[in-house]
């Protein structure tokens, strides 16, 4: 059996006595018999570390690690620089708690301050929080920021990722919040239909950029439509795309949210990921979660603290803007190091390469007989094609060559993705195999 108990049996006895107890039975005597388990847990015997690592390796080996990944849909195989992994593995960062004690947490606090700055830079917004659970919960929290007594309904474009829509629905299921999902048109937000449903009860319009199908929305127009109805405009964005596309700030959005996984986090079967949230200045006090601010100590030194806590659950309890307590701090640090390592040129390069590869893949797939599903739309690093055969057959063939193909959609189409990690050679191989399957 493994154990991380520090005290030896002897020490435990000594301490029991010192605290006035005969034995552990005595120590636990105040717990009513009726609720005691009174038996051993019916779980396996404990293992030594050596056995644990062997068993974990065996489990990991039961998963297929694909060499070439052409699937995105919310989780992306971007390159992670070594320095990112090195920095975020530092024991101090890994093991600290939320920085309640500023005097011994300046490093943690300052990196969050840097994270907030980076997220504002990326999205073009004024203020940022210190992270929420993931991109989908970030979108859901944004609804709560916009809702008020008068405006309780939400309009979501049908081009927003289904998982994000699902989470928003679930989050809103407790409080009466009417959700209208406006079906997509040709892989893009149906602007007319959206304008038609926006009204004086609409708290916000939520749009994704690039959208779930990889297509680039005309965000300016959608923002105008939302604002014309007095609703807030929320954009859920791919942070990598922010290096090249018009930002939420530039589009006039009130809130920007998104999934930060692409900024240095592994796919990890879905988490931990990073939900980021930035907002226009006027919405600062509606932001959920931790926020770090700069201040001075009693000697006048610049320093950092958790601030605006009057929004938070531990102060406001049932009146808090959100219930969030622990967030995804280490993921926010990861993004901070990633963005520092890439820098402006590197992030533009990552964005550019992803777009280049995706466009090349789309052209080659089209030649091979996989027609683009939305030829009129412009896309970034993801796109949808038709699939002349059942998608499963194609996927099975690709899997044999350690390729994870695009995501089969419910309508038989496929959502492909490329990043800077996909080489021309790999793309050509994929296309060759795909061609074979449909011949």
């Amino acid at each position, binding site marked *: *059996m*493994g*154990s991380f108990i520090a*005290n030896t049996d002897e020490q435990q006895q000594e*301490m029991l006595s010192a*605290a*006035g107890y005969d034995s552990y039975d005595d*120590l*636990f005597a105040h*717990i009513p018999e009726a609720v005691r388990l009174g038996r051993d847990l019916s*779980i*396996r015997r*404990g*293992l030594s570390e050596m056995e644990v*690592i062997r068993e*974990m390796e*065996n489990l990991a080996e039961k998963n297929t*690690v694909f060499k070439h990944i052409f*699937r995105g849909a*919310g989780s992306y*195989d971007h390159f992670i*620089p070594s*320095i990112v992994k090195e920095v975020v593995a530092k*024991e*101090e*960062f*890994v093991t600290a708690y939320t920085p309640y004690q500023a*005097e011994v*947490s*300046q*490093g943690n606090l300052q990196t969050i*301050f840097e994270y907030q700055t980076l997220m*504002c830079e990326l999205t073009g917004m004024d203020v940022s929080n210190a992270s929420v659970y993931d991109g989908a919960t970030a979108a859901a929290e944004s609804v*709560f920021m916009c809702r008020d007594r008068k405006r309780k309904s939400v309009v979501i474009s049908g081009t927003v990722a289904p998982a994000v829509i699902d989470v928003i629905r*679930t989050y809103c*299921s*407790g409080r*009466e919040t009417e959700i209208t999902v406006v079906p997509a048109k040709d892989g893009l937000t149906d602007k007319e239909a959206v304008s038609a449903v926006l009204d004086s009860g609409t708290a916000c319009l939520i749009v994704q950029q690039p959208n779930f199908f990889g297509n680039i929305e005309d965000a300016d127009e959608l923002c105008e439509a939302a604002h014309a109805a007095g609703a807030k405009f929320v954009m859920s964005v791919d942070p990598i795309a*922010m*290096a090249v*596309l018009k930002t939420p700030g530039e589009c006039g959005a009130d809130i920007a949210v998104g999934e930060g996984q692409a900024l240095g986090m592994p*796919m*990890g*079967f879905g988490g931990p990921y990073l939900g980021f949230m930035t907002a226009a200045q006027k919405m600062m006090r509606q932001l959920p979660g931790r926020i770090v601010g700069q*201040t001075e*100590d009693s000697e006048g030194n610049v320093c950092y603290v958790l601030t605006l806590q009057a929004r938070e*659950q531990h102060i406001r309890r049932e009146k*808090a803007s*959100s*219930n969030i307590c622990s967030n995804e*701090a*280490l993921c926010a640090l990861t993004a*901070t190091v990633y*963005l520092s*390592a890439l820098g402006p040129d590197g992030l533009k390069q990552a964005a*550019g390469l992803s777009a*280049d*590869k995706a*466009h090349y893949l789309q052209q080659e797939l089209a030649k091979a007989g996989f027609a683009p599903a939305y030829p009129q739309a412009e896309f970034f690093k993801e796109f949808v094609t038709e699939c002349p055969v059942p998608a499963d057959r194609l996927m099975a063939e690709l899997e044999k060559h350690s390729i*994870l193909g695009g995501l089969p959609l419910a309508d038989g189409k496929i959502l492909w993705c490329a990043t800077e990690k996909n080489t021309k050679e790999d793309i050509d191989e994929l296309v060759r195999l795909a061609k074979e399957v449909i011949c």
Partner: protein
Amino acid sequence: MKTIFESSVKGRKLTLLPESDVPAADLKAAKRETPLGLPEVSENDISRHFSEMAKATHGVNDGFYPLGSCTMKYNPKVNDEAASLPGFTNIHPLQPDHTVQGCIGLMKEAEATLCEITGMDRMTFQPAAGAHGEFTGLLLIKAYHRSRHDLQRNKIIVPDSAHGTNPASAVMAGYEVINIPSQEDGCVDLEALRNVVGDDTAGLMLTNPNTVGLFDKNILEITEIVHKAGGLCYYDGANLNAVIGIVRPGDMGFDCMHINLHKTFSTPHGGGGPGAGPVGCKAFLADFLPGMLPEGDDELKLVKPEKSIGMMKAFNGNFLILVRAYAYLIMLGREGIPEIAKNAVLNANYLRVMLAGKYVMPYKETCMHEFVMSLEHEKASMDVTAMDVAKALLDYGIHPPTMYFPLIVHEALMVEPTETESKETLDSLINAFTEIYDKALEDPEYIKSAPHKTIIERPDEVSAARHPKLRYIPEDK
């Protein structure tokens, strides 16, 4: 300490990505026009900057961290090693089930183990933290009542000693919060409870041991009162470390609950997350669980429960955190798990008794894994507050206990040593507390102006909130 932005030099960079080997895509969409204000630095700059940041951060590796309600135990490194295996990290969340049999298998085993430990029947791993789990559990309760068309149940009862997330979660789930006062010993006032339950009671949120560290002996009566009124009982699992292997929430009458893997199950806190807050429930609630649950024996698959409340998070939750917790679970196993609770409780009582000579313990009973001390007396007699004593501890290299929580104790310091700390470490805290007390008698100003050895003095929190500076702004702007 300089920010990373202040090290930026135009044109400085790393060389991470290759040239393109395909034609350039020509995007016609509206482009970003604002300059991208990321820092331009070298890898050397990054290494030094974040080394400096890490050194200005107190981790568990730097010393004792008896932060009450947070279970800052030692995080075994084998957890991290397991979670960094490429067979876990490089897995896309939307891979087909037959290519992720290891992941699903791990979820299945972890679920079975944690259900046995908690006395629950099924569990979802989607929630990313404790508060997220609370919200999930309350939606389960809501779905349950709705499924029975029992629609008037719109109130959640929460003791005034509860953690702030409890009432906040209840509101997010669309409930009205009914606060009930605690008895003097922090336990539930049965009379008060009986008075508030009724056919508008959706449920009760409770943690046991309660937030002052005491085990509520009336727990079976409490849950029965709620059940009799037609409500359900939600267990805030943040305090599971006290009872793990000894008492099970399921056996205390709770219907659903969350676990903080980042507390009891030794996954690191990461400076504020990521954690994981799996939610377990009794069988009658299992059909409402969110996300995808592992099913099957040989061919495992992820299946969405029939009447699922939906999705609490995209994908499968903080899976790599679960990997860590699972490594910990199989390492400790049947014999190791109860040792956690025993030693957590012993360590807390040892400290409590040893400190009782100098400091006032508002509760004299045996505590569980943590206890609360009150500095009310010190504040009155020497004008030395809980905050002052906490800050003085910083000079000993010890992270202070939780301050001013729970709200029902004045000038509270809440101490949770955890089972991974040694007697020597506990004694060092006793010594520090004793010295601080003596110093406070002799020279209160010294304590009131503590800390003296940290890189900054006490920060001005008031002006931070009054004039929020939430991002770096370059000098030239």
